[in-house]
């Protein structure tokens, strides 16, 4: 009987800790994805400002060079544009909105910054594109800072909360 209780309590504690861990991990995942995005946008900047490569080639290069955890987005957009000749670039960016939110755990403001890239990309000459990139990097920087703060604040809290909740539950049940 005691063995069963011990196993039961252990199960409760592990699963609640796991839930806490998963909740907490969301914050670090978001931060990591923002950092991956930043790197990809940096690659994109090089492609455009220094390489003057047209968007379809630039996107393919980023997909190949960048961290696949984020760079697949660019491949998605590229494929979308090839399939929908009527669409403009922003439509391509809008098509990945849900993927950003669901798979990459982006918040509304993160998605918005990424979409603003779609609004400005390819619309003007190189010097103007350069200015726009600067602005976007600034915005990504802000997001990064905010995501980091949030992660530090919440990740531990959720992890601890999960563990403590499990322990509390065990004590009550005992």
């Amino acid at each position: 009987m005691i063995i069963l209780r011990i196993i039961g309590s252990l199960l409760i504690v592990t699963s609640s800790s796991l839930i806490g861990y998963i909740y907490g991990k969301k914050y670090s995942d978001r931060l990591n994805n923002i950092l991956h995005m930043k790197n990809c946008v940096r690659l994109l900047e090089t492609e455009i400002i220094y390489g003057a490569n047209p968007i379809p080639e630039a996107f393919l290069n980023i997909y190949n060079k960048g961290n696949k955890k984020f760079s697949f987005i660019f491949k998605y957009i590229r494929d979308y544009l090839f399939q929908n000749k009527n669409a403009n670039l922003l439509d391509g960016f809008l098509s990945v909105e849900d993927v950003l939110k669901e798979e990459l755990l982006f918040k509304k403001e993160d998605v918005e910054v990424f979409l603003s890239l779609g609004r400005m990309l390819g619309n003007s000459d190189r010097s103007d594109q350069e200015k726009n990139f600067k602005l976007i990097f600034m915005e990504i920087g802000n997001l990064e800072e905010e995501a980091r703060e949030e992660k530090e604040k919440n990740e531990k809290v959720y992890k601890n909360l999960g563990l403590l909740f499990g322990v509390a539950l065990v004590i009550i049940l005992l």
Partner: protein
Amino acid sequence: MDKNGTETFNSILEYISPELSKKLWKIPDYIKKNAEEIRLRKEKPLMIFGGGTEYFLMNEGSVSKKEKGALITTHEDLVRTFQLISRYSVYAFEEEMRSGFITLKGGHRVGIAGKTVYGAKGIESIRDISSLNMRIGREKKGISDNIMKFIIIPPDSIFNTLIVSPPQCGKTTLLRDMIRNISNGMEEYDFRGLKVGLVDERSEIGGVYNGVAQNDLGIRTDILDGCLKSDGITILIRAMSPQVVATDELGDYKDINAVHEALRAGVRLISTVHGKDIEDLLSKKSLSWIIEEKIFERIIFLDNSKGVGTVRDIVEGYSFNSVLNREKY
């Protein structure tokens, strides 16, 4: 060849907004084969020009010579088409925009008109695009085969040759094929291929796209793409040791000076000019200079009388006597 004509036309449709290209797909094959230009103007009917005739695209995808019921090109059509041409990337075509046209894969050229923006170094770009003219580049291999015997001096030289024709009579197409023949050589005349240096100021002859010439210019041809003729001829002579220099559209004094430089270097020349006949050439100041100097030993006149690229006459540059007709009779 015929099949090729429609395929070339269809290949350009992938750069046109889907709304329009769907309808352009449906037009009869004989028009596709002969089409030279597709013209898109904002809020104006879409026109297809070919073989000296103008056609309007109708709403349901047929064509008509009359304007009534013609399909009107909208602002969206132009924007979408331009997006496809520039591949969503205005920044990648800054240089091309400055010169007013973009070369597509396959050597087709798209002329652009709209609001020009001036910067410190002249035209910076073109905005608010109002017209697009898609010129279908047609490579016609073999069209010069019959006249090459008047141009070449076997085994390894050619006459300095000038091709004269009004616009849209196939000057560039003929020049392109002559370059190919000169560069590859012609066994039937015991003519060895020569090194050809081509100054392709308007990317029209080679249709260079991403650094690769889209048209066959022969195996011994070096192309200086997008370079001014006056600069290009000098560079080629210095750097590439060509035996023949080819250029398109001789016009101003700078070009003529460069031609003289080429002659001093002992290089053979082949070029084109706008014009109708000898009188017309002599009436243009800069050109009359080289005609009177008898630099060109062969002058080819083209016109539209029996379809685009009809060779009306080939004359000897010294006496202006026809060599083509002498051969015939």
